[in-house]
């Protein structure tokens, strides 16, 4: 019954949380019972952040309908995602950053001469005049001050109060931006040193893991932007050196996951805000996997000292080529190919209008999955998640480095959807093909189990079992 607190810092934090949510939605195994996401991002309007929050809220809505289902084998939406008690939308609120310059935030004009001099020394004019509404524009040194609102805040207390022995903490951040780069060491230092809560002794000794994402994309050059990818690498190098000395060497972290890629897509340049909506990326998926890896790492291993990890693929082929399931390492492949394929099959089936028209199908009629059900909130949430799932896959498939395990755009024939894998014949159903096969499986394999289960639980169970059956038989996954 352990909990894993996952701090997603900045834009990268939100995007990795999204990938994690997708994995959990598709039923990828998580050793922690509960994931508690906490988003730290001063960019109120960041599209990545809002998309992720929306997704997680749908997830929660779906998950909550599936609980306490005896005899269920369903793994879709299985792992609980829930916020810290008292926190809205998973967001750690940051005060006074809206339309505020850094110098105003620290009320510089009120400082004594000596401190004023120091502040002028440590921070450049650009630092002092940067508007923090959209994060720190690659200025993590100001982030290190602004984000330091944890200590003593009600939200931090709420977090601390919910923390139990055995719970773990994971921090997601990018090293080359602003918010993530500063939030990570700051959060870590706070976790290790803050004594304002009663639980400080548990928290300060808690196992903390982190993934630090190195550059994996460029942004278009824009003279007026605070973001300049030409400096991504040099910033990364400086920050890495800082992490080495001030995070790893002093033992304040238990596991550190490094991730980055030399193959880079170029994104449109946005300082942040609603336009900062970067496409999902394989790196984020790998980062999400690091969360799961950390959750699965046994206590004994962490007790050995700080663990450092890098992520490897199975393939050695040209990185410009698409990454398929078989290019992933075995562990990753085994962990995700089945669930993701199950979930895409469900997506395709529901997407291609079979569901509503199939109300007359036995699996629907018998389980009372009628018009009301398909017009209800639950199904709407499922549809939304499925839609996001499709987009998520599609984005990764059109990004660089390209992860394209599916022909996700394809609708027919359905079972050609897995790239690099041809579908086998399903012997009992040699003559039923395509969506008909799905109907057939849904009808024949729907479970004979707890009649007290809710329609939502039944619906999810049917689809989980059917897709699992199909995945096993068609793809031998």
């Amino acid at each position, binding site marked *: 019954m352990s909990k894993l607190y996952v701090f997603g810092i900045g834009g990268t934090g939100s995007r990795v949380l999204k990938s994690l949510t997708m994995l959990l939605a598709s039923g990828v195994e998580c050793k922690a019972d509960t994931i508690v996401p906490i988003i730290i991002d001063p960019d109120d309007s960041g599209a990545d952040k809002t998309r992720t929050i929306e997704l997680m809220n749908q997830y929660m809505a779906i998950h909550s309908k599936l609980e306490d289902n005896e005899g269920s084998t369903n793994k879709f939406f299985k792992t609980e995602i829930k916020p810290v008690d008292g926190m809205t939308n998973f967001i750690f609120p940051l005060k006074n950053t809206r339309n505020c310059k850094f110098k105003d935030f620290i009320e510089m004009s009120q400082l004594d001469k000596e401190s004023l001099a120091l502040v002028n020394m440590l921070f450049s004019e650009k*630092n002092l005049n940067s508007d923090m509404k959209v994060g720190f524009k690659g200025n993590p040194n100001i982030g290190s001050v602004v984000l330091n609102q944890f200590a003593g805040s009600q939200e931090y207390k709420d977090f601390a109060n919910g923390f139990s022995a055995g719970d773990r903490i994971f921090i997601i951040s990018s090293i080359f931006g602003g918010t993530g780069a500063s939030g990570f060491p700051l959060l870590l230092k706070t976790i290790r040193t803050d004594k304002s809560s009663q639980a400080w002794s548990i928290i300060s000794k808690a196992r903390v893991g982190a993934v630090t994402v190195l550059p994996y994309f460029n942004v278009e050059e824009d003279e007026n932007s605070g973001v300049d990818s030409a400096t991504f690498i*040099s910033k*990364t190098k400086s920050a890495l050196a800082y992490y080495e000395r001030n995070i790893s060497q002093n033992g304040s972290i238990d596991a550190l996951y490094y991730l980055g890629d030399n193959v880079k897509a170029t994104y449109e340049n946005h300082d942040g805000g609603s336009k900062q909506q970067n496409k999902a990326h394989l790196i984020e998926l790998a980062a999400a996997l690091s969360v799961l890896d950390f959750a699965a790492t046994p206590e004994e291993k962490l007790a050995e000292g700080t663990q450092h990890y890098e992520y490897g693929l199975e393939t050695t082929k040209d990185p410009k080529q698409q990454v398929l399931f078989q290019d992933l390492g075995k562990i990753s492949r085994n962990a995700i190919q089945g669930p993701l394929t199950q979930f895409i099959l469900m997506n395709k089936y529901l997407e291609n209008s079979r569901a509503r028209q199939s109300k007359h199908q036995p699996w629907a009629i018998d389980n009372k999955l009628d018009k009301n059900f398909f017009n209800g909130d639950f199904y709407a949430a499922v549809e939304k998640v499925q839609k996001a799932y499709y987009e998520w896959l599609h984005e990764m498939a059109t990004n660089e480095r390209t992860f394209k395990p599916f022909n996700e755009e394809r609708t027919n024939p359905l079972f050609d959807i897995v790239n690099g894998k041809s579908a086998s014949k399903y012997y009992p159903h040699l003559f039923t093909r395509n969506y008909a096969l799905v109907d057939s499986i849904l009808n024949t394999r729907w479970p004979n189990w707890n009649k007290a289960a809710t329609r939502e639980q039944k619906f999810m169970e049917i689809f989980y079992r059917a897709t699992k059956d199909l995945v096993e038989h068609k793809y031998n996954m």
Partner: protein
Amino acid sequence: MGSVLRLHKEADNNIKDWTGGVNRAYGSDVIEQIQDPGGARADKEITSIPSPFARVDLARSAFHYVADKKDLDGKTIYHKLVSDCLDIGEIFFNYDKLADKLEIIVWDKKKEISKLENSSIDAHQILGQTLKMYLEQDAEAYNFDRMDKIFLLRYKGPGKKGDMDIIGATSPRTLFFSSANDLAYCSEQLRPSGKDKPFDDEYSPLYQRDFKFQKYLYALRVSYGETKFAHDFPEFNSYLQESRRRLTDEQKDELEKMDEKSINEFPVFSIGSNTVEVIGISLHKGTAIDPDEMRSDFFIASNIYQGRRPLVLPVKTGNTYTDLRYVQDNWQDENAAPYLDNRELDERNLPFTADRYPYLTISDFLTPTVILMPYEISGAFFNGNQQDDEKSFLLPVKDTFFKFFTPKELMGKMPDGKNMIDMREFGSGSVEVTLRIPIQRGRYIEYVREYRKTDGEVREAANEGRVIEKKFGLGVMPLVDYAAIGAKPFYRVAFFAKSKNSKLHFAGDGACSVKAHAIRSEAETTCSIESYVLEENFNRIYVEIDKVKNVALPILKSYGTAAKYTFAVDFGTTNTHIEYSVDGGRASYAFDIKSTDQQMQRMHVDYKSDRDLEYAFLDAFIPNTVGDNDDYAFPMRTVFAESAKIDYRKPTESLADGNIPFRYEKSPIPQYNRPKTDLKWSNDDAQRIELYLDNLFLLMRNKVVLGGGGLENTKIVWFYPVSMTKARCTRFADIWKKLYKKYFGEPTKEKLVIMSESVAPYYYYKRDLGAKSNVVTIDIGGGTTDVYVVEDNKPKMLSSFRFAANSVFGDGYNFPPRSNGFVNTFKSDIQGALQANKQNELINAYKSIESTENSTDIIAFFFSLASNKAFKGTNVPIDFLEMLTKNDKLKYTFVVFYGAILYYVAKMMKAKGLALPQTLAFSGNGSKTLKVLSTDKETLAKFAQLIIEKVYGEKYTGVTLEVIYEDEPKLATCKGGISCKENPSYEDVDKLKTSLLGIDEKQFTTDYHYDKIKSDEINAVAKMVSEFIDFLFAINDENKNFFVDSLATDASVIKNVKEICKEDLVEYTKQGLEKKLEEIKSWGMGNDAEIEETLFFYPIVAMLSNLARKIK
């Protein structure tokens, strides 16, 4: 490309999934391998360090990167960071030099953190907590735990951006670190050494910096302990080591010699009660350059400056001077000194090094404004090597220049043959001035400034000069380098400004004060009339007009001093003559000023349409040349033009408060001058005479100096009238002595010769005109007649009386001038002739003389017309003498005049028992009128013979009486004075002095005093004159109407003449006596004074005037 999702390359590629494989954190090995496509050249600052102390870390990283790469000269952002940090270090090191632009703020860790944490402002608490958290958490990496204070540098100099421009500070990890802001704005102001400019794009590695600073850093390391230093500052230490490898062997040896005590060569750096330190290591500072130990090739090369030699710095970038040593190192090609430094020389800091040491720049030498004059410059003044026939410029050179160089040097050349100054005109009236200032090693700094005509403000700091046009006249008299010839200077500097607020200043090797500055007239519609009197050496003139001050350099010359000059000065009542001879030559010449010995040297060739300037020189000083062929020549009218503002109660100077007006009788008198005539016998101030003579002395002295004569060899002969009493004569002599002493030196009898006016002509006639042995010389001047009788070549008698030309033409004692017979008779004819010849200037000259209502001056003007050069060549020449000759009525006045003189002389000779004279030699300007009597010398001799024979009562037998005279009879005195070898002394002359009292034929004036003269004597004088009239007309009657027949007088009026001549003789005698007593009184003598002359002529003076008025 590997299959591991990471940025670096050289690593295990067999990692699959999140299965480990790296066993430690990404360290420098990994970081190194990460290839930066943007390179580290990115010009945007690295800010991705998630700590408020990011900047401290960046400095650390930069030193690490650069030292690790062993590439100290790169261009990456790390090299910039290192360079900036070293800049901060060097600024700390040179803090004393830069202290006026900086402040050190001390941030005390404990105190300030506590203040923030306890602040009532939430944000300050957060700031305090954050700083504290990072200082604690990151203590190990940056030595934060051992850091108590941060010393911050605040820039407060020119161009500061705000009140808290922090540019750098001490760092516990790299000793120093710099601000992330672009600090280029204070780069120029904070150059700690001549070499490097801080915070610029030319990153400067340590080994190329000021070696003193390097030594300091190594000394700091040694004193702290090298191992400890390497432990606490590993990156900085590695950098030091790398840098050291690149030093020269010499420098390495020097570092080798260092020990723990070497740091003590540098004083500990304290601010108030704080020692500036980094984790307990006290920082030290560079000692300021000891000015006495300064070595530089930029020292000014001056032969005259005695103080600490300032540097002269280039104001243009470029490599012209990069081979020259500046302070520590050579001059850098990007260096350029400011055009202007407003600080006092001793208050200056050197640019780029900030050392306190005097230096000079272009604006110390060149003025912001240059004055253009619309006239061609003459050869008498230096033209700045600029040639133009139309206009000229003053030299825009400041006084500072002359502290180091002489005017002669400015006119000279550099070792490479270039002029020290060049002025090149461009455009219309714009000028480019190039000034070359010699420094060491035979080199010079070249300063160039363009001056343009502009109405805008002067922008000296931008090296933009301005041209303004001004008009003025300037002249120096004489243009002599007195220092070179070792004589005391006597200068007159003429200045005629057309702008108000104009002034001259003078300077020479030493102080040069102006003895007197006379302003006869201020600049109004015409120019001012000013004269500066200087009796000290000067070699340059500052012309200041409307606050603009430029220099004029007169080209002073020196001359020999071997020649011997002799001058004879005949200071006459109406005319004055100076004759001179050189080296005892027989020939003598009327005083002249040739173009070769021009006394007043003007700055400009001519003043074109500005006639007022031309006239100013003529009216207030002297003409360029004076001589026979000129408008102006000696002998000339005795007249002095004194300033209308003159005040004799105060010290006065000739050619300042007044001058000899050479244009008198030729041009109108300017408003500012008051011409004074009748100087010699004037009842007015005796100082005027002195001033007049002073002017003559100045002319003579200049003549000597410019002619290569020795002042002490100069001989001056001057003449006194015998009719003067001894006392009066002594007072005259005192003036002459005083002036001789002033201008030539100690007067001895041989050098300053006093000679009787009566005696001098004799020597001339004797030597030059072959006068016989029994000679009577009669010298008739304007005011006096002198008679000298020599018998058998021995002086026998001498007499002088105030009866001369003016007695004929004057107004008696108190006749109204408007009734003057001569003036009224000829005035209209002469005026008509002037008008006919369109001599407007002369007409004006006449009007101004006429307005003085002095008849003798008017008559003198009439006479002057015959010799007026401008008038000579015209169609209607005027010869007043000829006009007189043709007037047979007025001729009677001359008959009476000469008759009286001859009668009196014969009476006196007879009384003295002298023989009949054989030669009558006439001289003096007054004797010109002998021609009015007759142009035939024999007729004149006959007239004289008749008178002498009748007085003597005996006839000439065997011998005839001969009359001789000169065409220029005025010259006889001077010529005689010069050739005289046996000048009788005053005492000898006094013994010869003879005067009949005038009451009878026997009574001499000897021992007679004025208070003895009573009515008996007066009546007796009148009676004797009456007898003379009878005597004179008896000669006519007894000799076949001699007057009418031989002298061609008008027969019809002869009776009338005789009657007029007998009128009011007693009254006239009284008037004459009164006039004499007044004159005596004005010379400070009483009525008990000895009688100077005969009373015989007193009534005749008035008689002649009366005759001229009445004869019609």
